């Protein structure tokens, strides 16, 4: 680690300047996905399967094509199958032999108006042979379940699977012998849990405009977390050369992982090419719910044993996650994250990846972790109560720390779990009195974080201002953070920097904005690009003064001789050097192309007070506090924003949000009225505690912060409900009907 991280004092990093894209966002001028238009643009719309599982016998588009005003119709035939590794996404973008879920795209049209496009969809005739379906994970694993794919044989199973099934893979982690651990325990608690699927719920539906010509060149504008990813898949599915498709990311109205893949973009490209005109597709909210996102749903068994003085002796978890109609439920990630908070001698986790007739899972903020955290932290809470130990003390006694062999394999470097737990324990919230009927819960959570491919370009203008181009869409204020890091490194005012999100033709490949990676990896690349520009500026100053390059250093925004021996010259400011640059060698720029890796893992701990209405089963969150390690908070207001937003998404999942399927396999609540995300009046203020334990893998010590905040809330709320009512909820969301039922059963039982 660079030695100066822990002691370095920052001049600008850590302050709270206004965000550079702020004014256009409070005046309505920012252009989001659906705000882009082109002359002569057609409206694209998609026909979707009304069946959960059906063989597509025939699609007749002739009547739609004959309708005046219809300019193009596409089906799976327009996306020929090739051996390019895009099999699943191609099949998800447009159904081929079978429709695999309610909402699966089967055809698309482009027409001169929305009304004509809608009319055309009605004229497309699809002959379906309806097949038996399965949407529940436990049902899908039964040998009698209808099998979605004949090519899926359970991976990593011994002996090897002989029959195709809905179980795509088995993933095991751990060390030691949990059974031996349980024998040493004074108390062993085993519980089974269910967690329903949630949607990312971004307010902006997916939207794009494609403008492609017959020679295979084109442009695509869309709201996405990764326009380079959109280019790769859209070009791939349409047989285009990568460099001939330029993708520009619009402002993005929320993603949370849900915009790390494509749905409509390759379809708009295909329609535009066929029609010879620009085509715009905007999803309705109904389409967003039925065909994009959501998370896995989960069925989980957890067993943990501990001695009466509070030491965990053995831990076991089995996770069954369904991730929709294609493999990739992230049960493997969940099995890794399950006991990541604890220092355990005997631990084993098994994750099963299961497919069902639901939309293909998309990542959602620490994908896989909230459900398993709910299960594990509920049992941990119950053990602490059984033993009679303070729940934070119980966690501290077993907490993972530097040098702990994690349950998923690696040994931890410096981590911040103990610090967050201690911060919560010391917070006034933890000691505040509660009224009868109220309860307090605590839980901790973990996420990996990662880095990835990053390319940035920093250009210094003749007037001494700086333009920074990055390739990771700004989903929560990252342009402000990047500008702060440039200002810090170059020693110039924040206002002199402008950061933009450049298109795919202007920069090298950038991985998607995900994995809490942007402040970490784009930040790392930005700092390096600034340092490269400084090198050039020092060389220009050296040449101007006629002294060696290594006799010049950069201090507080100026090039100056390293000492009296180097020569006696007035320091040159960045603006001075920039003004002369056309005569000293041309434009001054700094670049960085890097695969930023070595992101540090992240821990957080949450505290909640709730009140349960015993007549309705409704839960009111009275007070909520988040403690999390940020490594270094570059723009603390937006770090707080990540903590608060993630916590509230977790609260929504804990109390209300779920995908509800009918017996017909159709989604019953595809709208914000019936899929209820938290509203303003549901919530208290969300207090935040930002801890700063520097990440050795980043020049400023930054750690990703975006994902971990969604991990502990479900467990925190569940534990608070248990404290308030004495009833342990094992099925999330803990909606009023479920709580009422549990309260009634509990009363009947006692």
């Amino acid at each position: 680690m660079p030695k100066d991280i822990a002691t370095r004092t920052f001049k600008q990093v850590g302050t709270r300047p206004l965000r550079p894209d702020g004014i256009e966002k409070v005046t309505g001028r920012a252009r989001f996905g659906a705000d882009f238009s082109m002359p002569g643009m057609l409206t694209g719309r998609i026909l979707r399967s009304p069946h959960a599982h059906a063989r597509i016998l025939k699609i007749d588009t002739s009547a739609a094509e004959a309708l005046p005003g219809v300019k193009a119709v596409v089906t799976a035939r327009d996306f020929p199958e090739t051996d390019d590794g895009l099999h699943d996404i191609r099949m998800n973008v447009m159904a081929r032999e079978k429709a695999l879920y309610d909402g699966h795209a089967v055809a698309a049209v482009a027409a001169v108006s929305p009304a004509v496009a809608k009319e055309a969809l009605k004229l497309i005739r699809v002959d379906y042979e309806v097949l038996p379906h399965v949407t529940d994970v436990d049902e899908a694993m039964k040998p009698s379940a209808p099998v979605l794919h004949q090519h899926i044989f359970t991976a990593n199973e011994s002996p090897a699977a002989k029959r195709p099934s809905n179980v795509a893979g088995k993933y095991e982690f751990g060390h030691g012998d949990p059974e031996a651990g349980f024998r040493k325990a004074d108390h062993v608690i085993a519980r089974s849990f269910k967690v329903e699927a949630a949607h990312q719920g971004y307010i902006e539906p997916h939207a794009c405009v494609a403008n492609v010509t017959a020679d295979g060149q084109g442009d695509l504008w869309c709201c996405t977390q990764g326009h380079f990813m959109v280019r790769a898949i859209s070009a791939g599915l349409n047989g285009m050369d990568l460099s001939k498709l330029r993708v520009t990311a619009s402002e993005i109205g929320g993603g949370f992982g849900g915009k790390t893949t494509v749905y409509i973009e390759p379809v708009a490209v295909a329609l535009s090419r066929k029609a010879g005109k620009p085509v715009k597709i905007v999803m309705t909210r109904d389409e967003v719910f039925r065909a994009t996102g959501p998370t896995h749903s989960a069925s989980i068994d957890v067993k943990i044993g501990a001695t009466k003085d509070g030491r965990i002796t053995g831990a076991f978890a089995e996770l069954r996650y369904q991730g929709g109609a294609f493999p990739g439920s992230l049960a493997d990630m969940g099995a890794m994250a399950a006991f990541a908070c604890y220092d355990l001698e005997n631990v084993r986790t098994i994750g099963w990846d299961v497919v069902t007739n639901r939309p293909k899972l998309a990542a959602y903020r620490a994908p896989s972790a909230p459900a398993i955290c709910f299960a594990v932290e509920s049992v941990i809470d119950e053990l602490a109560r059984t033993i009679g130990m303070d729940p934070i003390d119980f966690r501290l006694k077993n907490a993972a720390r530097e040098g702990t062999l994690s349950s998923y394999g690696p040994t931890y470097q410096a981590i911040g779990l103990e610090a967050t737990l201690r911060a919560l324990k010391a917070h006034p919230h933890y000691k505040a009195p509660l009224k009868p009927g109220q309860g307090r819960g605590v839980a901790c959570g973990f996420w990996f974080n990662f880095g990835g491919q990053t390319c940035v370009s920093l250009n210094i203008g003749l007037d001494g201002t700086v333009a920074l181009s990055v390739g990771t869409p700004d989903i929560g204020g990252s342009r402000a953070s990047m500008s702060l890091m440039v200002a810090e490194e170059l020693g110039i005012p924040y206002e002199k920097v402008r950061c933009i999100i450049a298109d795919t033709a202007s920069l090298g490949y950038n991985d998607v904005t995900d994995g809490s990676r942007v402040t970490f990896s784009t930040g790392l690349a930005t700092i390096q690009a600034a340092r490269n520009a400084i090198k050039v500026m020092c060389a220009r100053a050296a040449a101007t003064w006629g002294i060696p390059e290594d006799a010049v250093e950069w201090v507080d925004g100026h090039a100056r001789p390293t000492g009296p021996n180097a020569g006696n010259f007035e320091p040159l400011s960045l603006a001075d050097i920039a003004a002369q640059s056309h005569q000293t060698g041309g434009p001054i720029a700094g670049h960085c192309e890097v695969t930023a890796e070595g992101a540090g893992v992240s821990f957080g701990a949450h505290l909640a007070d709730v009140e349960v209405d015993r007549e309705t089963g409704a839960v009111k969150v009275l007070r909520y506090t988040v403690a999390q390690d940020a490594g270094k908070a570059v723009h603390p207001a937006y770090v707080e924003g990540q903590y608060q937003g993630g916590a509230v998404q977790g609260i929504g999942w804990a109390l209300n949000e779920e995908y509800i399927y009918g017996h017909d396999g159709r989604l019953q609540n595809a709208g914000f009225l019936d899929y209820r995300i938290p509203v303003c009046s549901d919530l208290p203020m969300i207090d935040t505690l930002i801890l700063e334990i520097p990440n050795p893998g980043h020049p400023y010590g930054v750690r990703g912060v975006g994902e971990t905040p969604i991990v502990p809330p479900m467990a925190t709320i569940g534990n608070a409900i248990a404290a308030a009512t004495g009833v342990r909820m094992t099925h999330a969301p803990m909606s009023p009907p479920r709580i009422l039922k549990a309260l009634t059963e509990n009363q009947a039982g006692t």
Partner: protein
Amino acid sequence: MALHVKTNVNGDAAEFLCEPDETLLDALRDRLGLTGTKEGCGTGDCGACSVILDGRLVCSCLVLAAEAEGRSVRTIEGMAKGDELTTLQRKFLEHAALQCGVCTPGFLVAAEELLRRNDNPTEEQVRYWLAGNLCRCTGYDKIVRAVLDAAKDMREHAHA
């Protein structure tokens, strides 16, 4: 059959042709190019399309475009005067009350109407007034603080 609608938007006369079943939201965005008003759901559940119609806060996705005939519409584009932001807009920026910003126009329109009716709302009043506007990024904390702070600022300036 297209309808010809004459209305007033943000103090200026405006007219457009629209279909009988077209929403005010679509007319604002697609006919008048005022894309600051957003569509999040199209069913009146998210508030991203909030506008003021003759002094009443409405979801423009639930109003027919033809209903704007002879009435006045106020949208996010009418809020700032030139380069001068309103107190509320300024406070949203200062408090970092937006992350992605797609719900922000709706929140600003709704909050402005609240403060017009009540210059000293409690936190609870702010929370219930804004309960029809969904934000998925912020957890509402900073939005509520921005509105309360704007109200305080506006009261102090009104009395100064």
